[in-house]
């Protein structure tokens, strides 16, 4: 019987894996969720058949109560409130791991088990409070602004040190419950401290990260109670959650550490204007940003002509439109090397005329544009014409791509354009350089849109 249970776990784990895989593609996602949930059912049934179980009453009550609450909430929650709901559920999962960890403390446990117990309490606890804070911020029950105070970093340092210390103490004296409770309390505190300095807009990333943590907590709990399925499922969730978090950060064009620690920093540092630096971006990362963009402005220049990239540009446009984005072209009157150069090429590629906007039409709406893609243009998007009185092109109207949320500049090098002058656009905070032949870069983007 016991062996059978174990093999059932193997099957359940396979179902989780299969389910996760199918969740990754729109066509099969719903089926994937079903498969994963049937894995869960199997695992629970197997667990219930365990012959060590002497008393089913508590279990059944717990499951019925929990299940009913979960089902009720899931059914009734507003569509718009889903993200905070996920945060809440996640917190409960973390708490469960904390409790399992505590319950697993048995006299005479070895150091390994005790360590895993501490880990499951620590990770479970911080997942719990962190998720609650995230829930609060998202549902606006607490201010969604990043909360910062002086010495925040020091306080956090102290908490971490406290956790380590009390953890070590507990493992060495498993009977000293004081240390155990210190671990619990500090873990809960740490979850709060870690999330409050992060702004509401970054919460999805935080939830994803906490989700990964709750997986790790389950995994740690699995080690504590010596249960394979917990380890497998937990580490799957842990690993996939981390990846997902990374992807989400990339889609926001930020790094994970930037998301997590920007709050910490800004409370202390004072902001000094720095000369910008060049930030290259890879095709893959550019794709993540475009994939999430809902309005895109393409500004072509002579480089598009040199690369003969008009056909791929057209295709990229179509793909982005299929992805739900609004795409327009901003045509500067002197773009290219002859009047109407861009028109010739874009007409060749069959870009509809009404997608081509004159400079004066596109500039006012540039601020609402998520991503401006500058394809081999340089002089015609040079903000020096607006900002730098000393510039030889000062006063020439240009396309103000720098006012868009994000700017991608596709060119091969840092070389200047026809007018032979430096372009401060390339150094702006919101600019990313996608180096390479424009046709190849765009070809790469097309391939990412699959």
């Amino acid at each position, binding site marked *: 019987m016991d062996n059978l249970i174990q093999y059932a776990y193997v099957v359940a784990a396979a179902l989780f894996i299969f389910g996760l895989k199918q969740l990754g593609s729109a066509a099969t996602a719903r089926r994937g969720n079903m498969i994963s949930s049937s894995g869960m059912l199997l695992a629970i049934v197997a667990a219930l058949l365990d012959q060590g179980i002497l008393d089913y009453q508590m279990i059944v009550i717990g499951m019925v109560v929990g299940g009913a609450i979960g089902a009720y909430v899931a059914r009734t929650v507003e569509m718009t409130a889903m993200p905070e709901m996920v945060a809440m559920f996640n917190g409960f999962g973390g708490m469960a791991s904390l409790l399992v960890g505590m319950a697993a403390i048995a006299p005479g446990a070895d150091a390994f088990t005790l360590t895993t117990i501490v880990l499951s309490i620590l990770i479970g606890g911080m997942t719990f409070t962190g998720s609650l804070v995230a829930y609060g911020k998202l549902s606006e029950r607490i201010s969604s602004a990043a909360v910062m105070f002086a010495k925040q970093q020091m306080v956090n340092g102290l908490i971490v040190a406290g956790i380590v210390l009390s953890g070590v103490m507990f493992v060495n004296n498993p009977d000293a419950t004081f240390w155990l409770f210190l671990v619990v309390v500090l873990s809960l505190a740490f979850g709060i401290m870690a999330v409050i300095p992060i702004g509401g807009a970054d919460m999805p990333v935080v939830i994803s990260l906490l989700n990964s943590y709750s997986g790790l907590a389950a995994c740690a709990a699995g080690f504590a109670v010596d249960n394979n399925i917990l380890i497998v499922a937990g580490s799957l969730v842990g690993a996939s959650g981390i990846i997902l978090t990374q992807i989400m950060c990339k889609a926001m064009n930020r790094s994970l550490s930037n998301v997590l620690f920007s709050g910490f920093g800004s409370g202390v540092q004072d902001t000094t204007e720095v000369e910008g630096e060049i930030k290259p971006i890879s095709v893959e990362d550019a794709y993540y940003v475009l994939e999430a963009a809902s309005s895109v402005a393409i500004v072509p220049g002579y480089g598009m002509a040199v690369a003969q990239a008009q056909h791929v540009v057209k295709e990229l446009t179509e793909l982005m439109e299929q992805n739900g984005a609004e795409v327009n072209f901003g045509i500067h*009157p002197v773009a290219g090397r002859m*009047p109407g150069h861009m*028109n*010739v090429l874009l007409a060749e590629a*069959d870009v509809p*005329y009404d997608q081509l906007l004159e400079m004066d039409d596109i500039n006012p709406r540039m601020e609402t544009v998520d991503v401006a893609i500058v394809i081999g243009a340089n002089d015609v998007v040079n903000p020096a014409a607006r900002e730098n009185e000393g510039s030889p092109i000062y006063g020439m109207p240009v396309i103000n791509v720098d006012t868009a949320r994000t700017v991608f500049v596709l060119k091969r090098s840092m070389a200047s354009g026809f007018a032979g002058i430096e372009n401060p656009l390339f150094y702006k905070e919101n600019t990313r350089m996608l180096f390479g032949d424009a046709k190849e870069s765009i070809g790469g983007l097309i391939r990412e849109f699959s």
Partner: protein
Amino acid sequence: MRIAIPRETQSGENRVPITPDVAKKLVRMGANLQVESGMGTGSGFTDEQFTEAGATIVSDRNELFSSADMLLRLNKPTAEEIALMQRGAIHISYLDPFNEHALVNAFKDAGVTSISMEMIPRTTRSQKMDALSSQANLAGYVMVMKAASELPRIFPMMMTPAGTLKPANVFVIGAGVAGLQAIATAKRLGAKVTAFDTRPVVAEQVQSLGAKFLEIDLGETGETAGGYAKELTPEQVEKQQQAQADIIAKSDVVITTAQLFGRKPPVLITKDVVERMAPGSVIVDMAAESGGNVEGSVPGETVEWSGVTIVGTGNWAGEVPRDASQMYSSNLFNLVEDNWCEEKKLFVVDFNDDILPGCIITHGGEITNDTIKNIIEGEG
């Protein structure tokens, strides 16, 4: 077999029925080729080129006609020319048999086998002989070029430091062979093209060239078995006129190609619509010579009406005589080759062929084509 190629005499006709390349092929097939001196001048072919190809140059036109077993030509003959021919000779050219009843009778009486290039059936296999299509195709290109020369504007859009030039709006009525090529050419030049045709299947073809199709609900329309458009009822024509009026008024260029095989083309643009167009706009009426789709178009001429230029010069393919000759002579050659008997080196008139019988109008002193026969006898 003695095949004669007389010079085309119609004024303004620069095309030739046979190019030196095709002449060479005919000679290789075993024909005894007689070419009238100066025949190729209009398309820039010299007599020497034909001699090199193996043809004999003949200066005496009467001699040429009376000695020929077969004549390959472009335009229809005169009655005098028919009189010169031998009984049993074969005469291949455009004939316009629906209208040229006297000519058909002359052929019948002369016992000449007359083959009309217009009557080549429109099957997949006969396309290589289909001169109507090959010439209409070139016409589509030429009409756009004509319009571009007349228009005081350019076709493509240009966003320049001196402002944006909007693309020209081109509206094409009738998207048969010529209409489609006109659409394609105007599109290429960067114009914004819309088209209309009564045959609903054409919508997809228009879109396949990247142009817009104007949807007008005319009720029941359709095409004949031969692939030609059915004639509209007067009410339908009226409806079409109205539905098109607005788009025509806003167009810089309108090209009409709406023909009905063998019948007078419908008037699709009336004077009051022309008046609504901006001065400087251009209308090209492909059908001008056979009656015209446009009120006020003059066959063979370019006229102006309330500031709008109406081009009705006709003989469109003749404007690019070299390519037109190449295609027409290929069509002729394919027809001859398809019915050539290798051994006897003869053009065989076989009424069991799947293509030939449809385009033979008279043979052995009879009108063999039923449709034509019915029309002529019905009237006679």
